[in-house]
């Protein structure tokens, strides 16, 4: 016996296809801009890129020359910010995943993380100015700007690290505890070795975010233009993100390719970092140890 199709079946099947198409269109339209943006930036900014572009100073009132000081400045900011946010974020994650009990303090911490993640970047900028630049007297400096960035990326690092640690199955911990290992020994020998790559993925994403942020560093340590390179954390610095803002809005007679070149370099840095973290994650999924 064959099942015959009723008109209702046919209608349902048509509907099914229709909705599938509709949702697919929506998804495609959402991701299309990424590709479009990339193509335009490569098309228009590509010609500006050259080895010299990366390693020379901006010249002639920033209408010519390269991005070397901004590149170096961004690296300063990232390095100093990470040296604060990683220890703090990872230890917070260890506390939350391994030590914290399910009590009011843990709930308050989680609430604080959620809210810290939601604070607008410009409010972080105000905080950085009020706290680090003025109150702690760091002045406009790499240190103040990096601390601001560190506070900002902290929630992301905490959340991804905690997730990575919680993915380590509980029986491993219980086995280790019953061997007489302390909580810390268990963390050190069982939890961290098996969540390290996950934590690293989170840190890379944090770096990517740090590279792109502009508002929080505008008033805390990044300068529009500096004729010298930063030498200590007390100096101000140029930065890629702010440099893009400046050449795009404050230098009207810059040749068109210049801001596109800066934008392309910036986005290349960010997307490289993100791609790296994605590769890490897929490799991680493939070589499971249990």
């Amino acid at each position, binding site marked *: 016996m064959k099942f015959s199709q009723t008109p209702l079946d046919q209608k349902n099947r048509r509907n099914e296809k229709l909705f599938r198409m509709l949702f697919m269109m929506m998804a495609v339209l959402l991701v299309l801009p990424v590709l479009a943006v990339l193509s335009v930036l490569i098309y228009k900014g590509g010609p500006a890129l050259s080895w010299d572009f990366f390693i020379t100073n901006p010249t002639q009132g920033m209408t010519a020359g390269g991005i070397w000081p901004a590149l170096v400045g961004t690296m300063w900011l990232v390095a100093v910010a990470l040296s604060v946010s990683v220890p703090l974020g990872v230890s917070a994650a260890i506390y939350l995943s391994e030590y914290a009990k*399910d009590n009011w303090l843990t709930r308050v911490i989680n609430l604080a993380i959620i809210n810290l993640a939601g604070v607008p970047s410009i409010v972080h900028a105000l905080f950085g100015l009020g706290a680090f630049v003025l109150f702690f007297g760091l002045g406009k400096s790499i240190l103040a700007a990096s601390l601001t960035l560190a506070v900002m990326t902290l929630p992301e690092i905490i959340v991804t690290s905690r997730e990575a640690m919680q993915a380590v199955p509980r029986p491993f911990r219980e*086995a280790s*505890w019953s061997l007489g*290992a302390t909580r810390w020994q268990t963390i050190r020998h069982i939890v961290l070795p*098996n969540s390290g790559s996950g934590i690293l993925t989170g840190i890379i994403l944090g770096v990517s975010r740090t590279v792109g942020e502009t508002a929080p560093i505008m008033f805390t340590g990044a300068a529009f233009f500096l004729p010298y390179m930063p030498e200590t954390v007390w100096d101000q610095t140029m930065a890629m993100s702010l440099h893009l803002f400046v050449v795009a809005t404050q230098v009207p007679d810059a040749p068109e390719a210049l801001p596109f070149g800066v934008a392309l370099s910036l986005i290349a840095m960010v997307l490289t970092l993100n791609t790296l973290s994605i590769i890490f994650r897929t490799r991680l999924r493939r070589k499971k140890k249990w």
Partner: protein
Amino acid sequence: MVSTAKLEFRDLSIRYGSETALEGVNLSIKPNEIFGIIGPANSGKTSFLRSINRMDEMTTGMKVGGSVLLDGTDVRAWRNVFALRSRIGVVFPLPVGLPMTIRQNVTMAPRMKGIKNKAVLEELVERCLRRAALWDEVKDRLDSLGSMLSGGQQQRLTIARALSQEPDILLLDEFSIAVDPVTTMRIEDVLKELKEEMTIVLVTNLVQQARRLADRTAFFLNGKCIEIGETEDLFTSDSRDPLTRDYVEGRFG
């Protein structure tokens, strides 16, 4: 009396939040005996074991009342709970090979205690794996992952790991659940030998396993200890509790 018991439980009760898992348990376990605990699922057997090495402190919501005495001292009097745990070996229902090499699995406990001497550790690895009847199968691949062994091998690895602690007490929680019958028999032989050196508490869901191994056996049901006695008596005596008889003869559970 007190001094002859290795482990003694006085009015032990265990709760998870508002649920009672175990209530009013009084029993003592002699040195160098295999003490069997039988009973259906959810009768409080596993919770009983967890109270001995104070695993309740690592478990949200688990509360232990009454007292557990080890060599006459309340286990809660140990300030350093980790030192307490290092004297007690544990084997879990599902084999837990830690995600590190076989060698590292076995040397973890001694390394935690600060033993670094390579020769000592090597000797220990061989001795423990031999005693757990695993040496011949893994001696050529001590540096491969312990968590990638087969279930039965992982369970023997777990036993080797517990032996590396050189424990006074070995707790086994339904160790044969994920293990094939042949391996089960091999492990049972190992346990009979180990009895000479340590006190063994064997929780099992297989009543015949208790009969084969245990000197004395307790029957747990719904969070209560129904009966304790010489194992043979529990299986044959006429004076035993009717619930025990029904259970060991397979009428429920």
